[in-house]
């Protein structure tokens, strides 16, 4: 059944109200009469004057003409009300269209045999909405203004409040998809900034009624729990899409086994967002060439959902590929050999740095504990120098030739740029401010998220004698005693250092497993400093930040989504570019000092978001205590009916003219 929407019902009703009664009155008062020429109407006029005074109305007689005229005016009134085929329409007022462009909005939807992304559907629906709100035609009572905000993890105003349909349409069409996670809070804040006018005399009070917020999304937001609607604020949630089927790669890791550093081992975690189990094969490609495929499809159990839908647990499965020999650096791509609605999470990338064996210099090698710990690590070699020899080496200004220098309770007069693991005596690094010693201290506070403390708990650490220092902000404290830091890191330019402010022999650390893990972590972090970020990758919405050799220049970034941009490098070689919008591989090329050929590094960006991978649109979103029910957005465009009605009216007009002519001719 055809559901009609009236764009300008008031205008149509007004016309009908104004025209129909006079028409009826005309028919009451007036009859079509045959003309007849008489010598003079003088006497007739005077005769009528008496009669008319008594009877102004005549009895309404059935007439085809009257019926046709009523029908014609009725149709014109209906046409002026501008009926359209679907939906409800509001006009006037201020509207903010919040366009979700997060990763889940790239889910593909099948609409009448055609495939469209949710973002495309949302854009179509938003454009239709703009036409509804502003394209009311000549008879629309008043046009509103509309603002467009595009958001994912961040929000940006695409066009401020305007009544220009062209500007709004162009702004909506220009919204590009991203692979970011979706957060509504930022979008609401941006919208509120434009919709709330604050009286300068009463800054605590808004003087303008907030606009109506219309959200075009599938409702998957990671920050809904923290959001509430303010008084007088209204949100219309226009749900986009219906697809549910999705299987995602939610993690991809590649490691070189400690005992076989030339090999690469790849781990992948898969998540099934469907309520039925699925089987999927996973392909592994190295540098774009397929190298392995799971011998059998991986069965992933169905996702589970509580009856009220509040709790959802995706079915998960892990894939471990056999180690592949790959001594060079390599880009690993894992991809699902199964088509589902969302393609962004069907592939994941990881970058494995080249197999690198470290050369370590241990200075002041009296401590056998440290030496044996270092030698137990898979490094190329561990050389030993005394303090004097190390000073002479520094004085010669020759390259040190080591990936890491470990200073064991020895403080040289100066340190060249390099990477240092320092125990005991304070190193000659800037802004450390040593002011004394601390005795008999327990480690109180630790930053457990630091890679240095991976599998290294310092809860049992007791230090009999430690250096007391007050480092500046250039230092980052990893572990603290009651009065002063115990472990801290320093990163400045090409100098990276980890300082343990006590002699390990003055503590119970050598007897704890955390010591060996700490040493291994420190060697790993310092030995591969500058490469770590590249290997770890960035999430969509984050910025690529990496450090290259100081003095490098002319950095250029290419990546998915036709990204081809230049990035600035500061004097220390810090490069920051972003945010990254799409998942995939980003190649950063730059010119190192003294080099003629451009060096490059690659950064992988993966979705890894269970919130975005769960693409089933929400029927309602809940902001605090307010539940906002979805209004489904369909792909069908609203068709104007009024031109047809007007055409019918024209036909009736012609029929009326024909009937009239026939009557007059008699």
């Amino acid at each position, binding site marked *: 059944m055809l559901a009609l929407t009236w764009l300008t019902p008031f205008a149509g009703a007004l016309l009908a109200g104004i025209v129909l009664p006079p028409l009826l009155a005309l028919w009451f008062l007036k009859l*079509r009469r045959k003309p007849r020429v008489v*010598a003079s*109407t003088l006497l007739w006029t005077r*005769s009528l004057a008496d009669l008319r005074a008594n009877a102004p109305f005549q009895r309404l007689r059935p007439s085809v003409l009257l019926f046709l005229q009523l029908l014609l005016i009725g149709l014109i009134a209906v046409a002026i009300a501008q009926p359209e085929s679907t939906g409800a329409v509001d006009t006037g007022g201020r509207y903010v269209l919040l366009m979700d462009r997060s990763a889940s909005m790239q889910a593909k939807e099948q609409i009448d045999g055609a495939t469209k992304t949710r973002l495309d559907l949302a854009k179509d629906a938003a454009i239709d909405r703009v036409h509804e709100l502003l394209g009311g035609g000549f008879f629309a009572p008043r046009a509103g203004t509309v603002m467009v905000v595009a958001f994912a993890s961040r929000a940006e105003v695409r066009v401020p409040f305007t009544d220009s349909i062209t500007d709004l349409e162009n702004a909506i069409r220009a919204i590009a998809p991203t692979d970011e996670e979706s957060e509504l809070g930022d979008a609401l804040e941006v919208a509120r900034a434009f919709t709330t006018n604050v009286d300068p005399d009463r800054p605590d009070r808004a003087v303008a009624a907030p606009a109506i917020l219309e959200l075009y999304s599938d409702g998957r937001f990671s920050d809904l729990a923290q959001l509430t609607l303010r008084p007088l604020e209204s949100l219309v949630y226009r749900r986009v899409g219906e697809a549910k089927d999705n299987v995602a790669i939610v993690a991809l890791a590649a490691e070189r086994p400690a005992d076989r550093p030339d090999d690469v081992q790849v781990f992948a975690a898969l998540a099934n967002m469907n309520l039925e189990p699925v089987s999927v094969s996973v392909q592994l490609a190295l540098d774009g060439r397929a190298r392995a495929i799971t011998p059998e499809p991986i069965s992933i159990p169905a996702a589970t959902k509580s009856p009220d839908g509040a709790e959802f647990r995706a079915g998960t499965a892990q894939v471990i590929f056999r180690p592949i020999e790959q001594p060079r650096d390599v880009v690993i791509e894992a991809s699902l050999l199964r088509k589902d609605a969302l393609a962004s999470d069907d592939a994941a990338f990881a970058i494995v740095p080249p197999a690198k064996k470290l050369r370590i210099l241990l200075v002041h090698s009296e401590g056998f504990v440290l030496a044996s710990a270092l030698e137990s690590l898979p490094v190329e070699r561990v050389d030993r120098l005394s303090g004097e020899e190390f000073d002479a080496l520094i004085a010669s200004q020759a390259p040190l030739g080591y990936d890491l220098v470990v200073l064991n309770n020895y403080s040289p007069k100066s340190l060249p740029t390099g990477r240092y693991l320092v125990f005991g005596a304070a190193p000659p690094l800037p802004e450390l401010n040593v002011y004394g010693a601390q005795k008999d201290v327990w480690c109180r506070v630790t930053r457990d998220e630091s890679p240095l403390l991976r599998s290294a708990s310092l809860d049992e650490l007791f230090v009999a004698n430690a250096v007391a220092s007050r480092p500046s902000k250039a230092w980052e404290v990893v572990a603290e005693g009651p009065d002063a830091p115990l472990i801290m890191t320093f990163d400045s330019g090409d100098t990276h250092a980890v300082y343990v402010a006590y002699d390990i022999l003055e503590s119970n650390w050598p007897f704890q497993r955390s010591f060996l893990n700490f040493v291994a972590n420190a060697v790993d972090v310092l030995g591969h400093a500058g490469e770590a970020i590249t290997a770890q990758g960035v999430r969509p919405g984050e910025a690529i930040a990496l450090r290259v050799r100081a003095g490098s220049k002319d950095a250029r970034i290419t990546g998915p989504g036709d990204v081809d941009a230049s990035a600035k490098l500061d004097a220390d070689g810090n490069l920051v570019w972003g945010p990254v919008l799409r998942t995939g591989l980003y190649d950063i090329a730059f010119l190192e000092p003294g080099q003629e050929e451009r060096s490059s590094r690659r950064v992988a960006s993966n979705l890894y978001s269970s919130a975005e991978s769960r693409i089933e649109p929400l029927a309602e979103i809940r902001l605090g205590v307010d539940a906002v029910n979805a209004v489904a957005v369909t792909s069908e465009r609203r068709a104007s009916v009024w031109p047809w009605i007007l055409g019918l009216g024209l036909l009736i007009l012609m029929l009326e003219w024909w009937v009239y002519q026939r009557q007059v001719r008699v």
Partner: protein
Amino acid sequence: MSSTKSALHRLDDLIDGRLMAKLDQLDVVSRKIFSGKLHGERRSKRRGQSVEFADFRPYAAGDDLRFVDWNIYGRLDRLFLKMFLEEEDLSLVIAIDASASMRTGTPDSFDYCRKLAMALGYVGLSNQHRVSMLAFNDQGVQRISNLRGRRKSSELASWLLRLQPEGGSGFEAAMKTAALSRLGRGVMIVVSDFMLREGYEKGLNMVAGRGFDLFALQVLSPQQVDPTREGGVQGDLKLVDSESLGETEVTVTPALLRSYKERLDGWCGGLRQWCARRAVTHLLVESSLPVETLMLDYLRRRGLVR
């Protein structure tokens, strides 16, 4: 009441020989005695040389001695002159309404008027009167003046046949023109329907006060007299005034017809009374009445001809 095309094209259409022969016996009656211009067959106010004695008056030096009454001189020894009446011609002026309203009715009122005018004119010509005719409407006044003698009948007929009724009546202006023209005093017959929006009083006053022996011949079509006759009005109509083209929408009902007839009687009665007060003879003629009957019977009885 629809307009019809004229059926008058020749002299015979206006007046046939048989009617002429009958009209030869008639003469126009004037209730007053007017001075004529030429010697004629009608007694004049002037003293002249006819055989009919009029009066005596004392002799004055220079009088023609042929008219001295010597018998009285013998008896009274004083000189008296005998005076005789003069016989002169009569001026007959016929004014015809040539407005569009006359081109209505069945039979056509204007054709009827022209026949009537021709008949009256012929009577005038055959009695050696000076016959003048005016045809008036809001375009102006057409006239033919001072025709005398039966031989002028064809000239008069040709003039009448050329007339075309159109526009409004221009009655007042036409009467003013007639009053100021040198047509000579005499009998004036105004032929019209007198359905004048501006009223007939002013126009008639202009000629009634100028010494004319005035006749107002009101010619109405049968449909004007009785709208229910064939060709009249019936049902729901938009009546269009033939002169002003103004429209009046009517639904013909018995009540309306009654009202119309009352109005018509009132209008004609008003005209009659107005004429009676000013010694103007009002004659109401329905155009369905044959001209012969009208001339030989009706007008005779009403004293216009004898």
